């Protein structure tokens, strides 16, 4: 009888814990996504900035031979966009960091800044 009560208690605990796990997972996922959205916020709030960034990134990718799927916007600061380019291959993927100047369209390695 004692064992039975213990089992019920354990099931009750598990019942509560599953919701805790769900809410904690949800919060972690939401936090990670909100961080990304915060970085991209200028693209959502400023139409001119969005169009210009899109055109600049496409032109740069074409010039450098990059695949758009390997590009990631790391930061948008004033007239500069920090881009991370990753060449997806088998094994370790080579990565490079660049600053793209929105006014001039010039691309410089992150190390130079």
């Amino acid at each position, binding site marked *: 009888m004692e064992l039975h009560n213990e089992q019920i208690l354990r099931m009750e605990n598990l019942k509560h814990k599953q919701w805790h796990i769900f809410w904690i997972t949800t919060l972690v996922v939401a936090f990670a996504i909100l961080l990304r959205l915060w970085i991209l916020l200028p693209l959502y709030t400023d139409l001119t900035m969005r169009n210009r960034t899109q055109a600049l990134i496409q032109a740069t990718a074409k010039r450098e031979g990059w*695949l758009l*799927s390997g590009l990631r916007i790391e930061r948008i600061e004033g007239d500069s966009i920090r881009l991370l380019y990753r060449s997806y291959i088998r094994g370790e993927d080579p990565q490079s960091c660049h600053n793209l100047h929105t006014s001039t369209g010039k691309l410089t390695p992150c190390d130079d800044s």
Partner: protein
Amino acid sequence: MRRFLVLIGIEGYAVLLALYRGLGGVHTDEAKYLLDIPYPHPPLARFILNLTESLPYNELRWRIIFASLLVQAVWLVVCMAKKMSPENRLTLCGLWIFSASVMFQSGTIMMAVLTALQGLIFVWLLLDAGNTKYEIRNTNIAGWVALFWLASLFTAYQAVLYLPIVIAIFWKAKINPIHSVLAIGIPILLAAMYVASNPLAAASFIKAGGQNTGLPLFDLIQVSLMSWLWAGSAVLSVAGLIGMLKSKQWAMLFSFVLVFAFHITSYRAYYPILFLPLLVGGVIACPWVLRKSALLLAMQIVIAVYVFAHTELAFYETGARTVMRQVNQLPRQGTVLIAGGFGHGWQYESRSPILRYRPSLLSKAKAVVCLEECPGVSGYGFYQIENIPQEVWIRK
């Protein structure tokens, strides 16, 4: 012992299907998942696939795992059909094993396979609601169901097609309605936010949604009907739909309509499998459809053999694999330039970074693959390799 032998036999079938799939090469979408290229789907499954990237036989391993999951899911079907007679249960297992979508999508490393399996679990949870013990069980697992719903949406967006089933599960669970709304709605909101945070995913979403806009509606409906028939090798397709209609399984029917509408807007050859869990659910909900079970199973096997015999089987490897095997043997460091349109399969086969062909990048390149004309390469110290399906140039 008998069950163990059946398990081994089914596993042999799964491995054979996986090996067959592995003969050709990596499909562009498979490469996208294996390399964890961040679009269009959320990261959960592709992150897991990418963890074993450096291990040998990575592609084959995942093919066998995916094929095994799909084929061995027949045990879940057995569990779902526990109220049926042994004869009907055996027939249903045969209908699953000999479904065209199981035969031809086993061994593909595609998210649609995982989504279909997740759909099967949702259908199981829904149909299990009829059990007398459900009242106790539902409250105990609602949180896990919510977590599984979140995981399904973060495996592939197509899980949303099973939304009516998930709503029905929570509805029958009789938990706090606010709790239910949040448990169903927040994962969808998070998936939508993920799309917004990933411009590439958003762009591919828009592209996929509009890919069929130029086609006549009649053609699209015809393709979607064929896809439904293909999913269950016609026999399970028809029996499953009749079962859903006769048993008035509205949640499954709504999901069926959503999957059908999804085919109309964004048909791909690997989406028919999304019908499969609904068809199995339809048969289980209305075992009456299996009253001539022996005949149905015989017809299913005949159709499966016919489909298999009339399908163009590809026993040759892709151009990407052939070319990159040669290029990977080059000792020189440098990039590989590719002129023309190419899929992620080329990246998967390559050991060197791949860039789009630009004459100004020739100085960095160790090899150039010309899928279309690439001007300037011959005058830049490259020589062309012979006896290879594509035009490939190697630095001298």
